[in-house]
């Protein structure tokens, strides 16, 4: 059990980032999103994920910037804590323990040291009764503080956190629930309530869905279920309050948000159109249509230049299996409606979407539209098979099977064949044959048949266009087939018909044998891999895990365990089985040839397992440790019902992940111009080239080059000499100088620095650190005046000489030339 601590469950992204509105940092450089049990920080400029703020043990339910310090962020979580972070460096500053599950957090500038939290009134969250409480955060130097000073503000709180908002200068807080809007004034300690009628004449629903307060005026904007936006004014009177109504959205307004100046109001809904209303100009509005998904939240940066919309394409349910594209090693799953998304696991980044349905998606609630429900890759990643269907009821079910070929030229999949009536009923499962020579697709459907599809089998079709057509139709006693699987060498096909597993030969389409282990319908089916390919493993609904030896056609072993998901590793003999029992999921990894689990991990997560996949590693690890050996060749990723993508990681791996995340932090002190990027790349290359060969001799060149470059970059363009003059000098400055002797004093100093660096190198053995260091140097020397005391005398002298004339630094540059 001690060893197990080494292998631990790691969240590696994928979880919803749209649960709560994202926030943009005050300087507009970062976007922060609550995602699973961490807060993700993205850069607005590069649009890359930078790092996560990890530390909560449950879903993060709210984030907000600390009004007292714009570099800090508060986050609250269902684990009952509020944490204060430095989000740039990703440091946890403080933890405040509240003790109740928290559901949203609000702060205002006026209330220093007080956060407002949503907590559930009753312990069971089924009864959706929420309370808004003000919590005084105690000022204490300790890391973990218990905050016990709770005072209730109101109990008429909607579970939807966007139904609460602070008003101008934090003087009041507005919150709505169902049909009632309440405004609580802190100074007067009085609540004003305004109700709407339940229904309009036309039966439209008036319930509140979101609230925003104007930053300068006393005006509250509310969004409603029927798509209306109301602007409330004069709400210190219970009678003489007034509101104006605007109507554009045809479905519920998901979000309203004022720009920081208050000149515009932004709203969004399922239509995936961002609407910008001019404040005070009636119904004058502008649209930003086709944003690609229904809008859930909108936030604005404090300078009003950036709007951040979060959409619901991070979908509620993944219908297809998780798959790995054999080419790009990307995780493939449902993306935008009707699309498959390719998602890079390494970088936690969405690569691209493949439009499967190829129909316009209409953003309207309650429409039945085509969805991709099944997808499969062949072993080389050359073919992709997809199934899309529409219609919840089987009577109006529409579906089609599509086969996509990979196009080398365009580097993407191209539609090859569309089969509209592949089966007469819903397709249950499909798989490609695993042999490399012939590709064959087998589909099983609820109509009691399984079909094999081959490419170009039809003689009528032309030679150069190889379409797919049906090769064989098989059935067994009119039973409904559920699962199908090819053995590792594609010599056998196993199809399960309820309680019976049939083994077929794909060459002759002959029923070889049947295996049966009643009672219990077969739920999952897979062949063993590599050395265990003679084994067939199946799970049944009656909590039985069976393993047959196909040579003897006899049951090798069976064990009673409730398995919800069975996943074989294609690169090893291992099979992972997830078992969901009494509100937590356990993982067993075993080899088919022995009934003893290789590895068990109790309580992987509390939710039910949804999908799992083994992802081959780019380079295998060489862990000798028995418990983590199974992770050497490939990594297990799994998706829970909450759409958290989890994986197992080992200790060595974690180190690597840590360093890779650091690499992504870009130095923001220097403007990221193309020029800079060019130079930066160049410099790094130079470092790589030079470091191993002659470390001592070349290093001195580095800082000098940086001084001139920074000077070049920091000198206004109009005082610079002509570019033609500069260019030759600039290029020569980048060349390796062999005049090390002349710059003796400077080199001494640099070499001492170099020693320091090498010490550091020993510690980290990573050359990225070096890059960091040199960047720090660069930064230090960019502002010469501040760091002067740190410089040696020799360097001071050098600097004086350099600063004598305007372009003396250039003279130095020329001097340094041979």
């Amino acid at each position, binding site marked *: 059990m001690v060893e197990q601590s080494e292998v631990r469950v790691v969240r590696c992204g994928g979880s919803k980032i749209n649960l709560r509105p994202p926030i943009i940092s005050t300087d507009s450089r970062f976007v922060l999103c609550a995602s699973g049990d961490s807060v993700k920080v993205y850069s607005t400029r590069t649009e890359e994920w930078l790092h996560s703020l990890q530390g909560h043990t449950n879903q993060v339910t709210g984030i907000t910037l600390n009004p007292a310090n714009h570099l800090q962020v508060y986050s609250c979580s269902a684990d009952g804590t509020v944490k204060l972070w430095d989000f740039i460096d990703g440091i946890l500053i403080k933890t405040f323990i509240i003790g109740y599950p928290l559901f949203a957090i609000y702060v205002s500038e006026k209330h220093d040291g007080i956060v407002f939290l949503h907590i559930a009134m009753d312990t069971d969250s089924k009864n959706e009764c929420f309370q808004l409480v003000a919590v005084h955060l105690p000022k204490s130097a300790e890391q973990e503080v218990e905050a016990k000073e709770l005072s209730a503000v109101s109990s008429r709180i909607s579970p939807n956190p966007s139904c609460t908002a602070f008003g*101008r200068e934090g003087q009041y807080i507005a919150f709505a629930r169902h049909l009632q809007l309440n405004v609580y004034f802190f100074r007067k300690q009085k609540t004003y309530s305004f109700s709407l009628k339940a229904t309009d004449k036309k039966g439209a629903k008036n319930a509140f869905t979101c609230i925003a307060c104007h930053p*300068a*005026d*006393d*005006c509250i904007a509310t969004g409603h279920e029927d798509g209306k936006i109301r602007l409330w*004014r*004069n*709400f*210190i*009177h219970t*009678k*003489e*309050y*007034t*509101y*104006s*109504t605007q109507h554009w959205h*045809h479905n519920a307004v998901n979000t309203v948000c004022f720009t920081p100046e208050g000149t515009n109001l932004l709203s969004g809904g399922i239509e995936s159109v961002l609407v910008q209303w001019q404040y*005070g*100009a*009636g*119904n*004058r509005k502008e649209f930003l249509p086709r944003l690609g998904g229904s809008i859930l939240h909108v936030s604005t940066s404090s300078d009003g230049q950036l709007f951040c919309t979060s959409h619901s394409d991070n979908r509620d349910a993944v219908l297809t299996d998780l798959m790995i594209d054999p080419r790009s090693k990307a995780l493939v799953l449902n993306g935008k409606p009707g699309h498959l998304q390719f998602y890079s696991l390494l970088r936690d980044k969405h690569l691209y979407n493949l439009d499967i349905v190829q129909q316009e998606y209409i953003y309207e609630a309650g429409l039945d539209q085509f969805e991709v429900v099944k997808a499969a890759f062949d072993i080389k990643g050359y073919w992709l098979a997809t199934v899309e269907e529409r219609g919840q009821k089987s009577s109006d079910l529409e579906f089609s099977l599509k086969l996509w070929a990979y196009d080398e030229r365009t580097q993407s999949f191209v539609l090859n064949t569309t089969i509209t009536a592949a089966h007469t009923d819903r397709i249950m499962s499909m798989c490609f044959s695993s042999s490399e020579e012939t590709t064959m697709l087998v589909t099983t459907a609820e109509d009691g048949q399984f079909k094999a599809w081959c490419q170009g089998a039809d003689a009528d079709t032309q030679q150069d266009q190889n379409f797919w057509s049906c090769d064989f139709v098989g059935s067994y006693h009119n039973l409904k087939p559920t699962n199908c699987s090819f053995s590792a060498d594609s010599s056998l096909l196993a199809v399960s018909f309820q309680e019976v597993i049939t083994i077929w030969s794909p060459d002759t389409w002959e029923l070889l044998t049947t295996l049966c282990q009643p009672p219990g319908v077969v739920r999952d089916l897979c062949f063993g891999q590599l050395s265990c390919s003679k084994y067939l493993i199946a799970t049944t609904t009656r909590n039985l895990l069976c393993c047959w030896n196909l040579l003897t056609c006899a049951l090798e072993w069976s064990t009673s365990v409730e398995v919800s998901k069975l996943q074989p590793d294609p690169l090893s003999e291992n099979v992972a089985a997830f078992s969901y029992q009494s509100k937590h999921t356990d993982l067993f990894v075993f080899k088919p040839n022995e009934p003893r689990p290789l590895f068990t991990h109790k309580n992987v997560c509390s939710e039910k397992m949804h999908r799992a996949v083994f992802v081959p590693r780019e380079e295998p690890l060489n862990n000798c440790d028995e418990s983590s050996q199974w992770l050497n060749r490939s990594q297990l990723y799994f998706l829970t019902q909450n759409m958290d993508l989890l994986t197992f990681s080992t200790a060595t791996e974690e180190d690597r992940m840590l360093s890779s995340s650091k690499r992504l932090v870009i130095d923001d002190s220097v403007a990221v111009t193309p020029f800079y990027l060019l130079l930066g790349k160049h410099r790094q290359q130079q470092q790589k080239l030079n470091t191993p060969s002659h470390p001592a001799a070349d290093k001195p060149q580095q800082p000098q080059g940086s001084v001139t470059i920074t000077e070049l970059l920091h000198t206004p363009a109009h005082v610079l000499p002509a570019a033609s003059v500069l260019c030759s000098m600039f290029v020569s400055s980048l060349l390796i100088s062999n005049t090390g002797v002349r710059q003796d004093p400077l080199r001494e100093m640099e070499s001492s620095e170099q020693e320091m660096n090498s010490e550091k190198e020993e510690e980290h053995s990573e050359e990225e650190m070096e890059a960091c260091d040199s960047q720090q140097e660069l930064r230090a020397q960019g502002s010469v005046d501040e760091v002067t005391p740190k410089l040696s005398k020799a360097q001071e002298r050098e600097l004086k000489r350099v600063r004598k004339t305007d372009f003396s630094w250039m003279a130095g540059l020329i001097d340094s030339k041979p």
Partner: protein
Amino acid sequence: MGEFKVHRVRFFDYMPSGIRALAFNRDTERMAVARMDGSVEIFHCSDRFFQEKIIPGREQCGIEGLSWVGERLFSAGLNGGITEYDLTNQKVKYTIDAYGGPIWTITGNQQGTHLAVGCEDGTVKLFEVNEDKIQFERNLDRQKSRIVSLSWHPSGSKIAAGMMDMIQIFNVETGHSIHRMLADRGVGTSRSKECVVWSVVYLSDGTIVSGDSVGMVKLWDDQTGTLIKSHNVTKCDVLALSVSQNEDSLVAGTSEGTVVQFQFVSMVLGKDDNEWVRTRTFKNHTHDIRAVAEITTAVVSGGMDAQLVVKPLLDKIEVRSAASALRKIHFPHRRLVFCARKSGLMLFQYPGHLELWRLGESEGKGIPGSSLFVKRNPEKLLHLKVKGEDHIRCSAVSPCGEWIVYSTASSLRLYRLHCDNNNVSITKISKLPKVLSSANQLCFSSDSSHLFSASTQSSVHIVSLSQSGCKFVGTLKPKSGSHQAIHLLAASEDGEWLASANSDHEVHIYNLQTRKAHCTVPVYSSAVTAMGIHATTNCLFMMYADQQMCEYSIEQKQYTDWSRTVQRKGLHRLWMERDTPCLNVMFNPQNPSHVILHDTYMLCIIDQSLPLPDDKTQFYNQLTLKSLTEEQRKSHSHAFKVCKTFKDILCVELISDQSLVVVERPLEDVATQLPAPIKQKKFAT
């Protein structure tokens, strides 16, 4: 409740005329409404918007503006004249030509000293208001284009005038223009069209609000003559503006049929930096809104669709009640249909003519609710055009169907009808007594032997009718000496009594035998909308505008016991919440305890022998009663039996063969005859 054979009459093609102008008098709480046909109506705003007075119009008299000066009402129209009305006698007092071409607007200053009219020739003419007349004073600087709208500054020193493409501010003292503010034309194709400033409002803080044909409501500063703010309210025209008395709310009527409210609210609570903010939008009209008026607790609007809509402002109402509900007034609160009870003839009163119809006949009997086979179709007997330009003020047909009488503002004509089989002919009675020059209300006695004509000073002239002609019998004068015109007359079945109700809410009862005033019913605060004298008990049954009812025993000169019980117990909440007044009171001769009433939406029979409902009992209990057994019914039934089978009722009359005539004018039919409204894009069409 009893069963009746019902003549469901739908051949009365009454078309209400569109509303052109509104003027609200805050002191008397009266709303003056001018219609397209030139008629002017006075509604009492605090008495459930009862239509107190109707001054019929004339041919070719398009009223464009109305203005109150004190308690005097002036109007001006495209015929170029300014008219003052005699409201006591409900007629035009005099008309003065302004000599400036058609007049587009008229407005009086708050001081009540001057009237300003805007004329087609570009002049603003000032008239001084004297004791009995108005006197032209002078012209302000003449402009090139017509003056469409005018508004006085509350101080009376400045006038803002809306014109084509611009707004001018005049100094009243000098008559010169102070500022000229240009209104922008629309963009695109409407660029070439001039922008008409349909309406201006001058606020006391120097802000001028304008509504124009581009669809903008603009706020201007009169000191600098600059635009402060503009609100795009509609794609079409903003036709009317009105500001509340304390200038914190403004309503704009558009040609889309919407009323848009602006409010002067503080942007930051507790501070005084108020701004005009667009708040609510009311859509109660299908057609152009030509006039709006913000009264104390409601917004009144009227337009081409001929309905007067009273939209209450809930934030200004202290207690919600039936009196403060949304109210739509489609039909006049006067009778336009008269029935010759004994001969089955119907007289329809149109503004310019009368129509006489004979009711159809049916055969057989049917189960309740079924329609009978029509044996003989109703037939139009007579189409009587009015001589002269004046419209009909009142008319009547005698119960026997032999006499028809109508009166305009200037003349009264009495006809005798000869009806032998299919030949219908009329003869005009030529020698009328001099007193019958004009009448406010006309009524025949039940035996058709006398004609009662309500005249000036609440007096009633009696004329006896005979084959040879008519003879003046005498005049009935009230003791109170009221000058208000009589709007209701009711004669008793036995020819003994005559009751008259005037606009002062007085009801006088005269003894026709002695031709003396018998007594006066105690004056109630609300106007009488309908009354009738019971045939057997000789009790006067009165309905009031606030839905109260009274029964007054003429012989005992006091309220009956039943009436006192009603007053003591109070009427049912649902009865009080009805928003149209009862327009006729009839008595069922077969069951003397039955009183038949109707308003626009329902027909009601009050059984005076049954207990009154209180607020807890089910008011509309017909369906419940049907499902109960005979014995249970007794305990559940109450005095009010309401029939809602008929809608948009103009008149219900009980004729002598125990059948009811219900004259309906479905609002859908009215809507189809209206001009097409402005086409608007609707979502998902």
